[in-house]
């Protein structure tokens, strides 16, 4: 604790130095989603869900550029689901660079990994599942990060507490299980609950055409196990203590990127298992004589988890996708892909289109659909939740 307060005062003294004015940026947005079928479960919204988003960002940097402070907030007001009306501090940290060494204190988002269809290695942040139109949405995680960057690579150590629970759609929301989740009934594998200490270590480096990351994590599982409550009227989340080791590696060729992520996860509450995602992204440049590029993505997903571990839909699946980037002045792009379950034949699809309409005004269209879903597959609960969502964001 003494060490921490020394560190903090060092950070604050450093930041008292002369500096440029803080920069404000961010976006406001409106989103309209149309569900093509009525919900399966009582109370679910029928077809239309509208919402507004406000996401401000504040950045500040000292004159010597070694100290920076960053804040980024996110808030959504939803017309149909009070649970989806939510806000979060995505980032609120102070960072100090001292040569090759850096210290970060506060809430931050940290991304690890290389694959497209699933992020296995990435364990620091809780997913923001309420943001079903944004796969990258994650909740800010309070942490102290110490990082050393040398020619032989970068080593980062993370000390975390203030665990972030997963947030779930409410009774009115779509893309949920038959029973709603009672977040207030959450239980933990550690007696300190969300204040239990979590630690993580990561090494990353580039060796020619190869980018490598090795990681280890010990702490509260970001994925909850969902169990029925005593009355059987709702689900309650349980967050076990886990350890996880992971590797992510990418080999970059001329037109092909080969990617692999693999983890081993253990806990006192379930049997240790392995999981992996690997595949290729092959890009055809200037397709058909145009300026646009077409990337073809094929990945295989394996997950060997057994009973007692949070369920997954990706035990033995294939993902096929395509990414088209127009390379135009509007930065137009389309990413589309689908999963096929090799064991039960369940299928799901998703497409994301993006284009800048004018300076600062961004159009996003997201569509998701489910084909055949096997009754035993977790995706079966979502089989009537096909949607098309259109959003406009004004960035400032």
């Amino acid at each position, binding site marked *: 604790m003494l060490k921490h307060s020394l560190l903090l005062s060092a950070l604050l003294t450093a930041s008292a130095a002369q500096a440029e004015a803080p920069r404000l*940026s961010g*976006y406001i947005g409106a989103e309209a989603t149309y569900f093509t079928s009525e919900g399966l479960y009582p109370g679910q919204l029928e077809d239309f869900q509208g919402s507004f988003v406000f996401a401000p960002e504040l950045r500040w940097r000292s004159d010597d550029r070694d100290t*920076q402070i960053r804040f980024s907030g996110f808030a959504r007001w939803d017309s149909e689901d009070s649970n989806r009306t939510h806000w979060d501090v995505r980032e609120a940290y102070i*960072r100090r660079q001292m040569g090759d060494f850096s210290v970060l204190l506060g809430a931050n988002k940290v991304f690890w990994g290389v694959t497209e269809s699933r992020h296995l290695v990435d364990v620091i942040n809780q997913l923001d599942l309420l943001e079903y139109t944004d796969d*990258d949405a994650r909740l800010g995680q309070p942490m102290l990060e110490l990082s050393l960057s040398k020619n032989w690579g970068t080593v980062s150590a993370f000390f975390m507490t203030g665990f972030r629970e997963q947030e779930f759609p409410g009774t009115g929301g779509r893309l949920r299980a038959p029973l709603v989740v009672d977040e207030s009934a959450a239980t933990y594998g550690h007696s300190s609950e969300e204040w239990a200490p979590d630690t993580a270590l990561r090494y990353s480096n580039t060796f020619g055409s190869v980018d490598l990351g090795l990681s280890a994590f010990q702490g509260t599982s970001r994925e909850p196990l969902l169990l029925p409550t005593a009355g059987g009227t709702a689900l309650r989340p349980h967050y076990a203590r886990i350890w996880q080791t992971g590797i992510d590696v990418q080999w970059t060729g*001329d*037109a092909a990127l080969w990617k692999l992520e693999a983890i081993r996860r253990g806990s006192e509450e379930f049997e240790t298992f392995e999981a992996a995602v690997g595949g290729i992204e092959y890009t055809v440049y200037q397709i058909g004589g145009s*300026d646009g*590029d077409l990337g073809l993505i094929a990945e295989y997903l394996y997950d060997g988890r057994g009973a007692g571990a949070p369920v997954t839909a990706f035990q033995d699946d294939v993902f096929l996708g395509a990414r088209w980037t127009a390379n135009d002045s509007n930065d137009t792009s389309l990413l589309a892909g689908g999963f096929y379950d090799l064991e039960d034949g369940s299928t799901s699809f998703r497409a994301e289109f993006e284009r800048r309409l004018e300076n600062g005004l961004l159009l996003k269209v997201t569509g998701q659909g489910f084909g055949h879903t096997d009754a035993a597959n977790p995706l079966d609960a979502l089989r009537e939740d096909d949607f098309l969502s259109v959003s406009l964001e004004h960035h400032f």
Partner: protein
Amino acid sequence: MPLQPLLSKRSALALITGAALALSPLPLLAQDAAQKGYEIAARSDVSDNGFRDSAVDVTMELKNAAGQSSSRQLRILTLERASAKVGDKSISIFSTPADIDGTAVLSHAKLTANDDQWIYLPAAQRVKRISSSNKSGPFVGSEFAYEDITAQELGKFTYKWIGTETCPGGGKCEVVERVPAYKNSGYSKQVVWFSTKHWQAEKIEYYDRAGNHAKTMTATGIKKRGGFWRQAKLHMVNHRNGKSTSLSFANWRFATGLRDGDFRSNALESLD
């Protein structure tokens, strides 16, 4: 091997060859033209050296054939590397349009192999290694291809001197044809006008793989800035589609104290 003495010896040789040629009525031999072309390019290359690192603010103006325009603002950081065997390291950080604010592209230039390249996407806070083999593709929707904006290292081309002409902006220029030696280039050749005043390229004509004159770039406002010759503006016209892109450079800074560690992929997220 120290770079400087070698090049100055060659430059001296070039001057002698040049003087001899001026007196000789005989046609220029092919190998002499290649030699002279190389000397001129080498001279241009060293005229750039010694800045250690630089930072510059750039406004990119894109115009389509109908005259509609849009713009992007970025900052380019460059780290010079002393050896002629490796290329420079550079980072382009975009600040506008606002929806791409903070997006950054890091390149470790190679001579004839593909550059190592990473992109930082701020929304996902994700760094992605990308392939740079698509050299002829447009850079962020502009008329500049990736290969036009990456470091123009001496070893990336073979050269041939064509003649001496008046520069587009006046003054004397040596005209050199160069052919990319790296793979995946979109060009069969480029013709470069080097000003004899500062040895910077004032004009480049780009010929596509079929040999057609596809694009022309002109550099204007070349002045000594902080002790180094730098342009104020690069203007690229695409003759095939009628589009054009200009890059306006402002606020050149040199030896700003950028370190090798700033040009690592994991440093991209703390740049801005």
